[in-house]
Structures are given as structure tokens and as C-alpha cells.
């Protein structure tokens, strides 16, 4: 393999790091030399870089995306899109391909947060009473460090299909064969294939739920659990009457966080099915329309819809956090 391409990259990295150090130096210089007596001026300098970047990278683009979602490509004058009002939104809910993605997203959002949170909760209760706790937790938590693409490949390997007469490579089909069934093409047949993709995200998110909930369980005062124990509650009652109410805020945070992440799922679908066989989702469609099919109107409308879906959830979460604080 030839390495002629590599030195220029490393040079760019070098310049990048030098640029970083230069910025640090400049900031330090400004801070030391400038006679900053007033808080206002200090704050201005401290906030300036972040402010500029946020405006260029998030605020202005978000507004432009919103405007673009009312336009469509203009064949006559490619530089100026034409105004089409709500057409893109009408398309989103009426065209079969967009509806399929919306329905799939709905399925993801129903299943992933609920199952991951449940698995995480049960596991954190069990592991709280187990030895080798941190070892088990590390293993359970490990998928969080793996990229969605990596996870996609890992699970494609599990779902791998070989015809009946050959020996199976995928673990799932091997189990099917061991129990006397015929191997299946798990990723080809809708709507079941979406379920098999969903399993991957649950595999990743359950570890996240477990870590947060486990910390919450550890924070339950021992007096409460001891008192309940003295009252002779069963493990089942303990779980529903003591543990679950005590960690309710954490449960909510976990659930909401996973929901938001699930709405934006993209990498798993891309790495496992490429959105084919009826597995596409909202964020994947958004990417395709905006950057592959070159219809920014459709793409941005999907992005705005995603934003609208996320907003009430986050507002609800903020509201809950507020209440928590007032109770304390």
C-alpha cells in the first residue's frame, strides 16, 4: 500500500493543532493584557467564539432549514428554489414511501425506549445485589462505546443467512437449526426486519439505562429499604412500591433521552439494510432526500418534522426537572 496520501493529512492535523494553540495563546494574551475591569467586557470576550460558532453552525442554519422546507427545486433556475407552501408537508403524509418511514419511526419510538428502560431497570435491580457488580456492569455498558455502524455489522453477522444445506454462520439461524427449524433471511421481510434492527439499538441503549438507573438505586436511602424490609415486604412489592417510585425521576430522564436518540436513528439502518426492504426511517429519509436525491425541500421538511417531534418531549423533560427542584 502506498502512503503518499498520508503526510498531507498529518500536515493538516498539525496545522489544526497549531491553530488551536494559537487560539489559546491569543485568548490568554487578550485576557492578560486587555484592561478588563468590567464584567460585561470579560463576558463578551469569553462568549464571542462560542456565540459566533453557534450562530453560523446552528441558529442561522436552523432558520434557513425552516424556510427551505417550503420550497422545491426549480428546474428553470437552479440557484433559486421556488416557493411551494406546504406541499412538502403534504407529501410527507401522503406519499407511500415517506409514510413507510414515518410508520417505521413510530415502531422504533414505541419499542426502543420502553424495552431498553425496562431491561436497564431490571438489570440494575438485580446487579445491585450481585457480586462482581462492576465487572457485569462494564460488560453490559460496553456497547455504548461501539459505533452504531460497528454495532450494525456485529448484528448483521448474527443475522447472517445460509441455505439449509450449508452450515450456518449466523448465531440466530444456528439456534433455529438446532431447534429443528429452517434458517430465515431475517433482514429481508418487512415488517419483521425492522424489529431485528430495533434489537440492535436496544442492545446499545439498555446499558445506558442501566448505568443511570443503577446510580439512582444506589442513592435510595438505606433507611427506606431497611424499613420496608422490616415490614416484611416481598421482593416484588419492594420493586414496585419502593424502588420504582424512588427512581421515578431517573426513569423519566432515561426514557426521554432514549426516545430522542431513537427518533434520530440513522447509522444502524444505513449499515444494516441501507434503508431497503421497507426499513427506512425518518432521519434516513431526510439524509437521502437532502443529499442523495437532491430534493432539499423534502429533506428539510423531514428535518423540521423531526425537530417538531423532539421539542415537546424536551419541554416536558425541562418541566419535570423544574418540579423536581421545587420539591427539594
Amino acid at each position: 500500500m502506498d502512503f503518499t496520501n498520508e503526510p498531507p493529512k498529518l500536515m493538516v492535523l498539525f496545522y489544526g493543532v497549531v491553530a488551536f494553540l494559537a487560539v489559546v495563546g491569543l485568548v490568554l494574551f487578550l485576557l492578560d493584557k486587555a484592561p478588563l475591569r468590567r464584567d460585561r467586557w470579560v463576558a463578551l470576550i469569553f462568549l464571542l467564539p462560542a456565540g459566533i460558532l453557534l450562530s453560523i453552525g446552528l441558529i442561522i442554519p436552523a432558520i434557513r432549514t425552516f424556510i427551505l422546507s417550503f420550497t422545491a427545486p426549480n428546474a428553470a433556475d437552479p440557484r433559486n428554489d421556488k416557493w411551494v407552501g406546504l406541499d412538502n408537508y403534504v407529501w410527507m403524509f401522503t406519499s407511500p414511501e415517506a409514510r413507510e418511514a414515518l410508520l417505521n419511526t413510530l415502531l422504533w419510538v414505541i419499542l426502543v425506549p420502553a424495552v431498553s428502560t425496562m431491561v436497564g431497570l431490571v438489570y440494575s435491580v438485580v446487579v445491585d445485589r450481585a457480586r462482581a457488580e462492576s465487572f457485569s456492569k462494564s460488560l453490559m455498558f460496553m456497547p455504548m462505546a461501539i459505533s452504531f455502524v460497528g454495532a450494525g455489522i456485529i448484528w448483521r453477522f448474527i443475522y447472517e443467512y445460509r441455505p439449509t444445506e450449508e452450515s450456518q454462520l449466523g448465531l440466530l439461524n444456528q439456534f433455529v437449526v438446532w431447534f429443528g427449524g429452517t434458517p430465515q433471511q431475517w433482514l429481508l421481510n418487512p415488517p419483521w426486519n425492522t424489529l431485528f434492527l430495533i434489537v440492535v439499538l436496544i442492545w446499545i441503549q439498555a446499558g445506558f439505562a442501566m448505568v443511570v438507573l443503577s446510580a439512582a438505586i444506589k442513592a435510595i436511602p438505606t433507611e427506606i429499604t431497611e424499613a420496608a424490609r422490616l415490614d416484611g415486604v416481598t421482593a416484588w412489592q419492594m420493586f414496585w412500591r419502593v424502588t420504582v417510585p424512588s427512581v421515578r425521576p431517573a426513569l423519566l430522564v432515561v426514557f426521554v433521552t432514549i426516545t430522542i436518540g431513537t427518533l434520530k436513528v440513522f447509522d444502524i439502518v444505513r449499515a444494516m439494510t441501507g434503508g431497503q426492504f421497507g426499513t427506512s426511517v425518518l432521519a434516513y429519509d431526510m439524509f437521502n432526500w437532502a443529499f442523495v436525491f437532491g430534493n432539499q425541500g423534502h429533506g428539510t421538511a423531514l428535518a423540521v418534522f423531526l425537530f417538531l417531534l423532539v421539542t415537546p418531549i424536551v419541554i416536558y423533560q425541562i418541566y419535570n426537572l423544574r418540579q423536581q427542584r421545587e420539591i427539594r
Partner: protein
Amino acid sequence: MTATPVVIAPETEAVPATAAARVRKKLTSKTATAISLTIALLWTVPTFGLFISSLRPENDIKSSGWWNFFSHPAITLENYQQVLFGTSNVNGRLASYFINSIVITIPSVLFPLLFCSLAAYALAWTNFRGRDWIYLGVFALQIVPLQMSLVPLLSFFSQGVSLGGVQILPAWDLQGPDKFIQVWFAHTCFALPLGIFLLHNFMADLPRDLIEAAKVDGAGHPKIFRSVVLPLIVPALASFAIFQFLWVWNDLLVALIFAGGNQRTAPLTVRLAEMAGTRGNEWQRLTSGAFVSIVIPLIVFLSLQRYFVRGLLAGSVKG
């Protein structure tokens, strides 16, 4: 623990020293240990299978499941050799993409760290009118999905800014390895809302007396920021850095759009997703390739897990 009533039955093991330890010991049960270990191992089987497969010779991988490794063990590093350094295009040439991932990641972690800590300090410890509104604004920006800014940001890079036909800012028009710059830029922008929010929470928790004392000693804000606040929030900086590192290294969407798809700038994730699409049955390359991309985050994660968890609990969840 002098007043502990000690009633030792002859055959018990040493009594745990503290009350808490005693409670814990009473609570741990063999069943719970067995269940939790089983599930944890079950959870690891997919990754483990991938790892075992990546070490098996090509013919073995393609003809029998990885669990047969235990009855017919055969280990080779050939797959890694091929996928990293193989010259033909069917191989991954992942070494090159690996370097791209590193080049993308390092500045994308450094710049947000600096800008976020500056902004967080201003929002936590300086007084000016409208401070709370700005903080609220930054907080609210966390809900804006990346998807909202991708299309306009890309056109900002490729076409510049023009208003009413007048070009205000020129296009960046970056070619070849210079494209890294726009990836850094995008990642830095997207990291800010979370980073500022997280670091602000940590900084605001510092004791007010400490800052006041420094002020009384004649230190201005720049001095306080550098010599008092920064050293104290090193753990928070670490957890944010790990978070950002994992996010950037594992990211596919931002890289696809801003780095392009070729060997000169695309990171590992982009290449792997492409291989999964076009060479879905070449398991000897896919398994070793996937493991190449996983190994660095796994090391970082396992060695610095404590900081990562702390960050998670403080609310670092990226939008």
C-alpha cells in the same frame, strides 16, 4: 465503629468492618450474581463472536460459524493485514481511514473544550445584563437536531453566504485534505450547546467563597478562570472530552456530509458502512474492519469509564 455489638458465631467468616458493608454483604445473593453475570455475558456474545471471527482464517469464517473455533482453533492475523494494508480496492485500506479518523477527532475534541469552558465561565461567574437569557438560549439549542442545520451549513461551506444576490462571505471551497477543516468546524459547532451546559453545571457548583476570596486577593476574571476554576473542573473537562471523543469517532452522519466518501478524508465509520453495503458477504474483512474501528473507543472507554459515567449522570446526552 467501637460500639458494634459483636456476636460471632464460631463458624462465620470475618465480620465486615462497617455497617454499610454488612448490609451489602447480607444483600448480595448467589442467584442475583448468577443472573447478572449470565446476562452480562450474553450481552457480550455478539461482540465476542465478531472478535473471534476476525482472527479466523478466511476459509473457516466462510464455511462454519465462529463457535466452531473452539473445536477447531486456528488463529491468523491475515485478515487484519489485508483489511489495513491490502493494496487492492476490494480490501478496506483501513489504515488510511484510521488516520483520517484520528485527524478528524483530535481537533474536534480540543476546540470545543476551549470554547465551551470560556463560555461556561462567563455564564456562571460574570455578571451582566441578559446573562440568564443567554444561558437559557444555549440550553434550548440542545433540542435542535443536527438534521436541522446540515443542508444550510453545507451550502455555507460550498457556496458562501449571499444576500439578495450580493456575495457577503466567499465559499470556503476546500479540496483534498483541507476538507478536514470543515468537519472540525461542524463538529465544534454541534458540540457547543451540550458542552457549555455541562461545564456550566460543574462550574456553577464551585463554592462562591472561593471565587470571592480570589477577587479579594485582587485577581481579575481572567486570572480566576485560569488559576482557580480550570484546575478545579479538570474531571468535568475529562468527562466532556471523552464524550466528545466517542461521539466524533463513532459519528457517521456528519462525516458523510462534510468529509465526503473517499480515502483522502473519510473516517472509518464511513468506509465500514460502505463495505457493509457493497461487500456484505466478505466476512473476513467486515469482522476485522469492524474491530479496527471499535478498538480505540473501547480502550478509551474501559480505562476512563469513571469519567464517562460521571458525564452521563450530569446530563451529557447529545441532541
